[in-house]
C-alpha cells in the first residue's frame, strides 16, 4: 500500500498540470497583495464607510491577518476548481492515457489501488492548502505586519486581539482542508465514470455550484435539505472567527461563539467523504476496464 501511495504521489508531482493550481494560487494572492499594498487604505475606507461615523478605530486595520481573511473569502470559493483539476483526473486521466489497463494487470488489489489514489489526491489537496496558508497567511504577515483583526459580520462587528488570531487561522485551514477533501472525494468518484478528465471536472464544479445556490437561496422549501448539503458546511471555517462575549459584552479571549456548529459541519463533511470514497471503492471493484 505504501509503495502504491509513493507511486501515485510521484506521478502527481511529475505532471506539469499539478503545478497549475500552485501557480494560480500564487498569482491570485500576489495580485491581491499587490493591490492592497498599493491602495489598501482606499479599500479599508470603502469597507468601513458605513461604520466610521459610529466607531472610532485606532491601530492598523489593514494588517496581515486582515488581508489573509479577505484572501480566504475570495479564494476558498475558487480553490475547489483547482482541487477538481487533479482529483477528477485521478482515474479518468489514467483511462484516457490507457495506463489504467497496464496498472491493473499488475498484482495489486483494486481496493488498494483506489485507496492509494484517493490518499494521493488528499495529499495533493493538503499540499495546496499548505501553499495557500503560506501565501495567504505567512507572506501577508510578513508584508503587512500583524495587528487586531476587525471583521464586519451581517449584524455585528467582531474584533479579535492580535494574540488571539493565529491559532484560529490554523484551525480554519484545517477545516478548509476537510472541506476541500470533500470536493476531492466527489471529483474522485466522478472520475470513475469517464475516460477523459473534462467531464468529471465539469460535473464536480456543476454539483458544487448547484448545491451552493441551493445553500444560499432563502426559499423555505429548500431549508429542509440545506443541512445535508456539503456546500452548506464548506464555509464552516468562518466560525473560528466568531467570539463569545461575557455579560459585560466583552470578548472572551480564546473562545469560539458556536463550536457545536463547527463540529456538526465537520461531521457532515466527513460523512460525505466516507460516502464518496466507499462508493468509489465499491464501483471500481466491479468495473470492467474497457478503456
Amino acid at each position, binding site marked *: 500500500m505504501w509503495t502504491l501511495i509513493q507511486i501515485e504521489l510521484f506521478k502527481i508531482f511529475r505532471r506539469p498540470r499539478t503545478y497549475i493550481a500552485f501557480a494560480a494560487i500564487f498569482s491570485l494572492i500576489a495580485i491581491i497583495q499587490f493591490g492592497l499594498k498599493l491602495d489598501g487604505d482606499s479599500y479599508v475606507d470603502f469597507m468601513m464607510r458605513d461604520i466610521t461615523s459610529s466607531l472610532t478605530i485606532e491601530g492598523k486595520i489593514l494588517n496581515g491577518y486582515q488581508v489573509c481573511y479577505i484572501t480566504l473569502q475570495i479564494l476558498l470559493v475558487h480553490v475547489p476548481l483547482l482541487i477538481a483539476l487533479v482529483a477528477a483526473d485521478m482515474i479518468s486521466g489514467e483511462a484516457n492515457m*490507457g495506463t489504467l489497463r497496464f496498472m491493473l494487470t499488475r498484482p495489486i*488489489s483494486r481496493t488498494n489501488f483506489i485507496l492509494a489514489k484517493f490518499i494521493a489526491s488528499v495529499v495533493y489537496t493538503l499540499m495546496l492548502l499548505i501553499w495557500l496558508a503560506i501565501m495567504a497567511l505567512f507572506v501577508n504577515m510578513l508584508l503587512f505586519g500583524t495587528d487586531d483583526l476587525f471583521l464586519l459580520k451581517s449584524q455585528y462587528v467582531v474584533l479579535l486581539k492580535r494574540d488571539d488570531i493565529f491559532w484560529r487561522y490554523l484551525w480554519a485551514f484545517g477545516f478548509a482542508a476537510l472541506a476541500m477533501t470533500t470536493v476531492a472525494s466527489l471529483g474522485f468518484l466522478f472520475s470513475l465514470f469517464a475516460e477523459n478528465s473534462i467531464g468529471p471536472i465539469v460535473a464536480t464544479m456543476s454539483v458544487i455550484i448547484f448545491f451552493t445556490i441551493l445553500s444560499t437561496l432563502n426559499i423555505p422549501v429548500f431549508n429542509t435539505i440545506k443541512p445535508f448539503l456539503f456546500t452548506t458546511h464548506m464555509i464552516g471555517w468562518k466560525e473560528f472567527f466568531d467570539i463569545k462575549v461575557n455579560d459585560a459584552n466583552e470578548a472572551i479571549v480564546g473562545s469560539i461563539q458556536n463550536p457545536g456548529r463547527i463540529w456538526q459541519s465537520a461531521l457532515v463533511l466527513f460523512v460525505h467523504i466516507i460516502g464518496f470514497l466507499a462508493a468509489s471503492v465499491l464501483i471500481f471493484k466491479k468495473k470492467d*476496464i474497457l478503456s
Partner: protein
Amino acid sequence: MQEIINVKGLTKSFQHLTAVNNLSFTVFEGDVYGFLGQNGAGKSTTIRMLSSLVAPTKGEIEIFGLNLQTHRSEILKQVGAVIEKPDVYKYLTAFENLKLFARLSGVNVSAKLIMAQLDQVGLVHRAHDKVKTFSQGMKQRLGIGIALVHNPKLIILDEPTNGLDPQGIADIRNLILHLSREMHKTLIVSSHLLNEIEQVATRVLIIDKGAKVIEGDATTLFDPAQTIVELQTFNNSYALEQLRLSKWGVHLKTGRDHSILINIHRNQITEFHRELVNMDIPVLSLQPRHSLEDYFLQVTSGNQHVDTYSN
C-alpha cells in the same frame, strides 16, 4: 505438457451484446498461442478477462492451476501483459516507467537490471528520454519491456504489431521468437494480422462472434499442402456453372465477380488447370493464395464479408 491456461465456458455479455460466448481453450507451457479473429470477434474481451480487467459473466479461468478470480494477485505476479496499445506515462522517461511498473509488480529492481531490460528491447540508448518523444514502435517495445520486467512465466500480447511500420513489426516478431525459444516463455499473441501469427505461433485459436471456430497446432491447421487457388476467367458465371457441375464443385469455396476460390491439394493444381482447358473455360489467371488468410476466411464469417463485398 503442463497446462498454463485452462479456460472453460467463458462468456461475457454487455447488456444485449454477447462479446464472448462459451469459449473454452487450453494453453500449454512453451506455447506461442496465436489468438486469431476479425475485429470485434471477441479477442480483446477474452484477453482482458485473462488479465482480470474484465469480469466474466460466466465460465472459469485457471492460470497456473489457480482460479483467476480467487488467486488474482498470485497469478498476476507471473503474468506480463500488454493490452492493445502499450500506453505508459508519457511525461516520464523509459527508465522511470520501467521502474514504476517493476515496483507495482512487487519487484525492487536495481538500476542495472532496468537498463538490462531496456537493452533487451533495444531502448537502452533512450533510457532517460521522456516517452512522449518515442515512436509507436519504441513505445510498443517499452510496453513489452514493462511486461517482462518482473520475469513472468506467461506473457499476453494483444495486437502487438498494431500501428507499427514493417521494421517495427519485424522487431516485435523477433522479440516474440526470442522470448519463446531463448527464454522459454509461454506467450499468447492476439492479432488479426494472420501472416504475423503464422510466423510465430505454435498453436492457434480462431474465434468468430465470440465463439471458438477451431483450435489446434499451427502446423496441422495450416497444412501448406492445402492451397486456396484463385481463378480469374473472362466469363466467371460460365466458369462457376461448369465447376459446380464437375468434380471440383465440392472444393469451390467462395465466388466473387472477378475471381473464384477453390480449395485443393497443391499436387492437383496441374490437373485442375488441364480440366479447365478441357471444359473450355477461358482462364485469365490461376494463382495460389496465402494459405492462412484463406483458411481464416474459410472458417470464420469472413466468407460472408467477401460475398457481401462482391455483390
